[in-house]
C-alpha cells in the first residue's frame, strides 16, 4: 500500500510516516499543495492523507483537482477545523474521508486501510486465494491454517499478488505500490523480495513467473 502524506508541519508528517511504515505502508511526504499534486501525478497512491491548510496551494484546491481528475487514490482529509460545517465542506470537495485533529493514530491507520480497500475493485478485508489467507488489518498470513512469518515488504508484495486475483503484476507495479520514492528505481529489491517470499510460502509453489512481464499467484 502506498500512501502520500501532504502536511506542512514537518515533524508531524515524519512521525506519521514512521508509524505508517511500521504498519507496512510505503509512505511519501509532500510539504505543500503543489508538491502534493505533483507527487500524485507521478505515482499512483492508494490513499492521500491531505492536510487542508497547505502553503502554495490550499488543500481544498488539491482535493478538488484530484477529485476532478479521477484516479485511484482515495483522499483522507486532515485538519484542525473539526466542526460540522468544516467536515461537510471537506467531504463535499470530494474527499473520501475526513479526520479532525487531534486524532488517534490507530484510527488514522484504520481509516487509511478502509479507504485503500475501496480502490477499484473493492477488496474484502481478508483476502483468500489458493489456500492462502491474508488479513491486512491484523498483518497475518496463513497457508492452510499455518501462520507464516513475513517481513513488511514480503507481506506487501503478497498482498499485491493476492489482490490482483490471478492477474500478472509487473515488478514496476510492485515497486510503485509497495515501496516509497526513496527507493532506487534500478534496484533488484523486488526480485529479491519475491524469491524470499517464495521460500517462505513453501511447497507447492504458488507464485508463477511470467517471462518478461511479471509474477502471478
Amino acid at each position, binding site marked *: 500500500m502506498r500512501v502520500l502524506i501532504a502536511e506542512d508541519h514537518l*515533524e508531524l508528517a515524519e512521525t506519521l510516516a514512521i508509524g505508517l511504515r511500521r504498519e507496512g505502508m510505503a509512505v511519501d511526504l509532500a510539504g505543500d499543495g503543489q508538491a502534493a499534486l505533483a507527487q500524485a501525478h507521478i505515482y499512483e497512491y492508494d490513499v492521500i492523507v491531505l492536510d487542508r491548510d497547505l502553503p*502554495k496551494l490550499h488543500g481544498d484546491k488539491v482535493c478538488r483537482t484530484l477529485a476532478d481528475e479521477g484516479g485511484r487514490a482515495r483522499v483522507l482529509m486532515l485538519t484542525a477545523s473539526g466542526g460540522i460545517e468544516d467536515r461537510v465542506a471537506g467531504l463535499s470537495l470530494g474527499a473520501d474521508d475526513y479526520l479532525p485533529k487531534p486524532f488517534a493514530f490507530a484510527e488514522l491507520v484504520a481509516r487509511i486501510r478502509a479507504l485503500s480497500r475501496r480502490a477499484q475493485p473493492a477488496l474484502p478485508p481478508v483476502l483468500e486465494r489458493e489456500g492462502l489467507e491474508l488479513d491486512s488489518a491484523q498483518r497475518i498470513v496463513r497457508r492452510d491454517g499455518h501462520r507464516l512469518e513475513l517481513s513488511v515488504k514480503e507481506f506487501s508484495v503478497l498482498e499485491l499478488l493476492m489482490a490482483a486475483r490471478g492477474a500478472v503484476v509487473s515488478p514496476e507495479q510492485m515497486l510503485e505500490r509497495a515501496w516509497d520514492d526513496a527507493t532506487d528505481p534500478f534496484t533488484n529489491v523486488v526480485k529479491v523480495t519475491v524469491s524470499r517470499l517464495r521460500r517462505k510460502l513453501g511447497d507447492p509453489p504458488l507464485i508463477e513467473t511470467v517471462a518478461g512481464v511479471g509474477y502471478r499467484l
Partner: protein
Amino acid sequence: MRPTLRFRLTLLYGGCFIVAGAGLLGITYALFANGTVQRPTAFAHGVQLSIPVPAGLKAIIASGPRKLPVHTRLSGNPAPKARLGTRTRPPAGFIQTVRSSGQKQINSLVKRANLVIQEQRSQSLTSLLTESGIALAIMALLSIGLGWLLAGRALAPLRVMNSRARQITEDTLHERLGLDGRQDELGELAATFDAVLARLEQAFHSQRSFVANASHELRTPVTLERALLEVALADPEASVESLRRTCERVLAAGSQQERVIDALLALARGQAGIEAAQPVVLDELVRHLIDDRAPQLEGIRLRTELAPATVSGDPALLERLVSNLLDNAIVHNSPEAPWVTIETAVTGRRVELRVANGGAVVPADRVTEMFEPFRRLEAERTGVDRGLGLGLSIVRAVAVAHGGEAEAIPLDAGGLELVVRLGLAGPGPERQEPSLHSVLDASTDGVLAGPDRSHR
C-alpha cells in the same frame, strides 16, 4: 389603536385639512354675514315701496285696502339700487305696487318686509352653514382616507426595511436591505443601515477567522504530541532511549503550545486595555531587552538612538511590544548584511519607538495585512520553527491600548520600519527605579515565557 406613524400622519394631514377647511368656511361665512355683500333692506320712497330681495327669491307683496294681510310669497331679482326722489321703474316681478292709504301702513309694511328679509337671510346663512358643514365633513372623511393611503405608500419602504432587517441574523449578515434607486431620506437611511451591516459582517468574519485560526494553532501541537506518543508506544522495538527521545520531543511541542497560549492571552490582554497605568521608562526597557538578545544580535549591524522617554502604561504589555518588534527585526533580516536601527524619541505629547531592519523589499499592499492575527509570510509555514503570525497584532493591540498606534513603512532599499507611537508621554526623563524593577518582576512571574518568536 397603536399610535403608529401612519396613524399620526393621517391624523395630522386630516386635522390640518379640517382646520383649513373650517377656517375657509368661517371666513366665508363671516364675510358673507358681515357685509362686503350688500345688506338688503326695504325702504319706502314716495309712494313706491322698494323691497330688495335676495337673488332667487320671489317676492310678491299684495295688500288690500283695509287690512294688510301680507302674504309673503317672495320672488325677485337682484335688488336694484334705488335712489330717493327718482321715479324708477322696478324690474318685473320685483315688487308689486302697493296701494295703501297711509304712511303708517307703509311703515309697518316696510317693517314686515324687513323682518321677512332678515328671516330669509338668516335662513340662507344657516343653510350655508349646514351645507358647508356637510361638504366639510365629506371632504374631511375623503382627505383622511386619502391621507391614510398616501401615508401608507410613503411609509412602505420603512415597512420593507423593517421586515428585511428582522430576517438578518448573524448567519445571514451578507444580506443587505437593498433599497436601491431611492435618493431621498429613506434611501439614505437604508444605505446607512447597509453600511452598518457591512461593518458588522466584517467584524463577525474577523472574529470567526480569529477563532478558527486560534483553535488551529492550539490543536496543531496537541496533534503532534499525540502522534509522537502513540507512534512511540506502538513501536515493537521501543527502547528506553527511543522513549526518552520521544518524551523530549513531546516537551518541545508542549512549549510551543505554551507560546501559542501565551501569545493569544497577550493579544487578549492588549485588546482589553490597561488595568493600572505605571510610568515605564521606555529607553531603559529597550536597552534591557537588547542586552537580552545579545547572542541573536551577533553579526547584525546595530545602531541605537535611545532618547530618554517615559510612558504611562502597562510594563508587561510594553515589554511584549518591544520584544516582538526586536524579534521580528532580527528574524526577518537580510541574510547577507543584516542591520537593525532602534530609536526612541519624544515628539510633542507622544513617544515614538522606531525599529527598522534590512531585508527583502516589502510590497506596499502587504503592509496593512501584516498586523492581522495569524498572518505570516508564506515561506515560513514549513519548517520546524514556525512563527505564529501574532507578533504584530499584539504590537498594534498594545499600542492602541496605550492610546497610540502602530505603523509599518516599507523601505525603498528593502526592509521594513516599524513605528509605534504611544500617547500619554510621562512626566519628563527622570529615571524611576521602581518602574524598571516592576518590568523585571513582570517578566519573571511566568506570564511571559521568553521572547515571542512570532513572525509577521
